[in-house]
């Protein structure tokens, strides 16, 4: 099979298994994309972890803990897929903590209040699940298969998030204010989340059918699904330009792409602190890895 034939194969919906021949560029793009997803699952638990001890009820504490456990589980599944493509998990973790690889923009920001926890669980997870559902059709089949399990667990996360938000919205004025402030804080990063509106034909991840939709398509889907849900609760979105035009397309203020780039290249408000926490836990748990590997020897 030539590279051109491979390209035509994946573009017509063909799927690839671990042992199949694949072009080097495809393998490299897969590793980069999937590794970043794994990093994001692993780093994505930290903003919520900060609230486990401060959760308002035992029920919330348990749900948050379960969610953190799920996301770390996703990271394990995902790094396993990367490992089969040729990059060992240890190398992924090393690159993550040394700042050589990236993770999603939304996990570089602080979680100021319980309102942020609700907005993350509801809207950040909603944005993420839109990307992840599109990966169910990924041309690399082992990744598409684990995505089935991941999407299934994410649906519990979104419900949990909505439940947190609805409880607060039905509560006191102060609680409603916490939610509105959190929506205001998170709106910018949420609009940046799906990436710049590069035409999908120019996006190598789409060309190789690693992703099955373009960035703007994903953002439109997010706005379509969630802006009405935000509005119906009496919340507002901090963008005066936001509206659905006559053709059914959402118009909005241009997201701050410079901020996105700055944040994902390691300069977010919580990047350094969270990577330092990861480095610390890696040091603390090294003896566990050694003990497990000794078992293998």
């Amino acid at each position, binding site marked *: 099979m030539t590279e051109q034939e491979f390209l035509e194969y994946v573009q017509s919906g063909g799927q690839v298994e671990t042992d199949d021949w694949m072009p080097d560029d495809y393998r490299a793009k897969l590793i980069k994309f999937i590794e970043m997803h794994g990093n994001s699952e692993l780093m994505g638990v930290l903003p919520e972890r900060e609230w486990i001890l401060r959760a308002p009820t035992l029920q919330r504490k348990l749900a948050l803990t379960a969610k953190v456990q799920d996301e770390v589980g996703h990271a394990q599944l995902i790094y396993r897929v990367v490992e089969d493509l040729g990059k060992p998990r240890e190398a992924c973790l090393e690159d993550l903590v040394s700042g050589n690889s990236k993770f999603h923009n939304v996990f570089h920001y602080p979680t100021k209040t319980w309102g942020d926890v609700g907005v993350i669980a509801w809207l950040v997870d909603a944005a993420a699940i839109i990307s992840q559902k599109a990966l169910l059709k990924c041309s690399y089949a082992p990744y598409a298969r684990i995505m089935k*399990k991941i999407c299934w667990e994410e649906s519990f996360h979104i419900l949990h998030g909505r439940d947190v938000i609805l409880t607060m919205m039905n509560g006191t004025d102060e609680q409603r204010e916490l939610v509105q402030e959190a929506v205001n804080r998170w709106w910018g990063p949420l609009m940046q989340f799906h990436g710049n509106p590069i035409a999908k034909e120019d996006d190598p991840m789409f060309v190789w059918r690693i992703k099955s939709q373009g960035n703007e398509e994903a953002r439109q889907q997010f706005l379509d699904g969630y802006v009405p849900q935000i509005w119906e609760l009496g919340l507002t979105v901090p963008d005066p330009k936001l509206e659905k035009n006559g053709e059914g397309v959402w118009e909005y203020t241009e997201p701050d792409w410079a901020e996105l780039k700055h944040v994902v290249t390691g300069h977010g408000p919580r990047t350094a602190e969270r990577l330092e926490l990861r480095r610390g836990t890696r040091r603390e748990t090294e003896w566990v890895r050694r003990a497990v590997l000794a078992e293998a020897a």
Partner: protein
Amino acid sequence: MSGVYEVFRQERKGQAFAHAGSVAAPNAAFAEAYAREQYGRRGESVALWVVPRDAVMQIEEFVDELQRNYHRVDGYPLKEKLKEARERAGTTASADS
């Protein structure tokens, strides 16, 4: 045995086991623990098969040198023959294919 174990999961009793993913483990006991944790902890499976990757025999190319289509449905294209038979019997007009 140290290495990669493939995990197959059954969602409901009676259904086929489907490949779900894999775990890397230093031995079978760890493989079981990891598989339970990663593919069964939310009740999404009623059973798992955990198999060392090396034990999976993969067979891919199915060559049909003799074009043995007599044992498949594509070996029986009846359309032309049916048309001819209907014409012979003079029932073409009333038939619909």
